[in-house]
């Protein structure tokens, strides 16, 4: 493993213990209990408004639950920490428009106090890792949607986090770019052994990527289903989707999702 990634495979896990949150008088999440072992790729699906984004913000420590406890690596989450990175769906708003791609990655390293002499190499390594090696001096507006999202991932990796939270990261991208990024993400996941919580509304994407799927109901958000995804790794865009388990899980969960949208 290169020094550029600096993630530590450790017994890190996420624990949600009867977590509820009410915002503006409305209950968004109710009694969510979840345990995510280290290194797992957890896919979360649910209808819009089911509080999926809220869940991520709770794990990240950006918001606090009204009841219950959120724990990361055993300790209570009271504030954001560098160990938990978020990749937002609206990448255009999450990147600094006045810094180049290299500058955006650099922000994470600067925040960590990495000395200037070390930064250049690590930035280059990270950008190359996400396939942006030759675009280091471009501004976000000069990059395509897929490239901007890769840049966000690069910054998240630069953070050195062992937990990666992704909020429908590929939702705003076209199908081809989405597939390419899915596979790249799987490679990164295998390489860094990070714990990943991936939110999507796309059932097939959730199955394709995850080790486990959790379906959230809405109004208020509750765990409806929690099943492991028994599919071989490495995943393959065609082969995996034709695997009998894939089809079976898809059918099983399709009904659940239908029920959620009813």
């Amino acid at each position, binding site marked *: 493993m290169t020094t550029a990634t600096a993630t530590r495979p450790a017994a890190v896990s996420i624990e949600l213990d009867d977590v509820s949150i009410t915002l503006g008088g409305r209950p968004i999440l109710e009694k969510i209990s979840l345990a995510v072992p280290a290194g797992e790729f957890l896919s979360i699906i649910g209808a819009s408004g089911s509080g999926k984004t809220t869940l991520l913000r709770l794990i990240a420590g950006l918001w606090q639950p009204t009841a219950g406890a959120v724990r990361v690596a055993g300790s209570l989450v009271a*504030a954001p920490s560098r160990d938990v990175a978020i990749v937002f769906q609206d990448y255009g708003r999450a990147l600094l428009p*006045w810094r180049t791609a290299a500058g955006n990655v650099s922000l994470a390293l600067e925040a960590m106090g990495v000395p200037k002499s070390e930064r250049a190499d690590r930035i280059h390594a990270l950008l190359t890792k996400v396939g942006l090696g030759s675009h280091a001096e471009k501004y976000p507006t000069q990059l395509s949607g897929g490239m901007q999202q890769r840049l966000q991932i690069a910054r998240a990796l630069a953070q050195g986090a062992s937990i990666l939270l992704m909020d429908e990261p590929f939702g705003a991208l076209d199908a081809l770019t989405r597939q390419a990024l899915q596979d790249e993400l799987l490679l990164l996941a295998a390489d860094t052994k990070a714990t990943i919580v991936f939110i999507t509304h796309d059932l097939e994407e959730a199955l394709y990527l995850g080790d486990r799927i959790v379906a959230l109901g809405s109004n208020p958000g509750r765990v409806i289903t929690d099943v492991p995804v028994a599919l071989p790794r490495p995943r393959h865009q065609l082969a995996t989707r034709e695997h009998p388990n894939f089809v079976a899980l898809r059918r099983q969960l399709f009904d659940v999702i239908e029920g959620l949208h009813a």
Partner: protein
Amino acid sequence: MIRARALGLFRALAVPVTVLVLYELWFRLTGQDSDTLAPPSAAFSAFLEAVRDGTLATATGQTFASLLSGLAIGGGLGLASGLVIGFSRRADDASFLAIEMLRPIPSVALLPLALMIFGFGYRMEIFVVAFATFWPFLILTQSAVRQVEPRLIEVSRILGLKPLSAARDIVLPAAAPRLMTALRLGTGIALVVAVTCEIASNPQGLGHALMLSQETLRPARMWAFLFWIGAIGLTLNLSLLRLERWLFAHRGDYDASVAT
């Protein structure tokens, strides 16, 4: 591209130039001789005369001295205060009523006060210009800080940026385009207020030169100075607009078409 620009320039100048030419012709043909009106040609020669005898330069220098000093003081204080009430919700709460009470006071209302305290001269004008420029800077700086993309604030929290680093690396660059706009608008206001002070009482600067020309029944000179003041205002605005575009055009968050 160049053709479009040339067309734009032609259209911009067509009407004013035509009006001036017609006006000139009317003057020549009817043989007017007036204490109040002057043909463009006379205004132009009066302009050259003012350049030659140094009065234009002197007056411009005086107005600019007051303009820049007042802008620096009022704008600086407004910027600092705007940062405070932008960052601190408590400060904003404590001050908003007081601001709403003091802000509506027209700057000219302070003119007699300034006159009484400082007498004629630079200090009186700087005082009024500073007061006038303080408010736009205060309001615009506050909104610039408030309107930083919330997603970026979350990013700064997740990355664990310390408050000072967050301010330097996230808030200020994000607010910079709006702060530049505040500077551009503030400069325009400073010019108007400075000239107004000179017209209303202060015996120095371009406004005074304008009034003096009228009082001494030299209409051509009056029109020359009027045009010069307009030209300065236009140049200041356009140059600052250029600067804004050059600084921020490459960013995704700057809307070049919004700037007026």
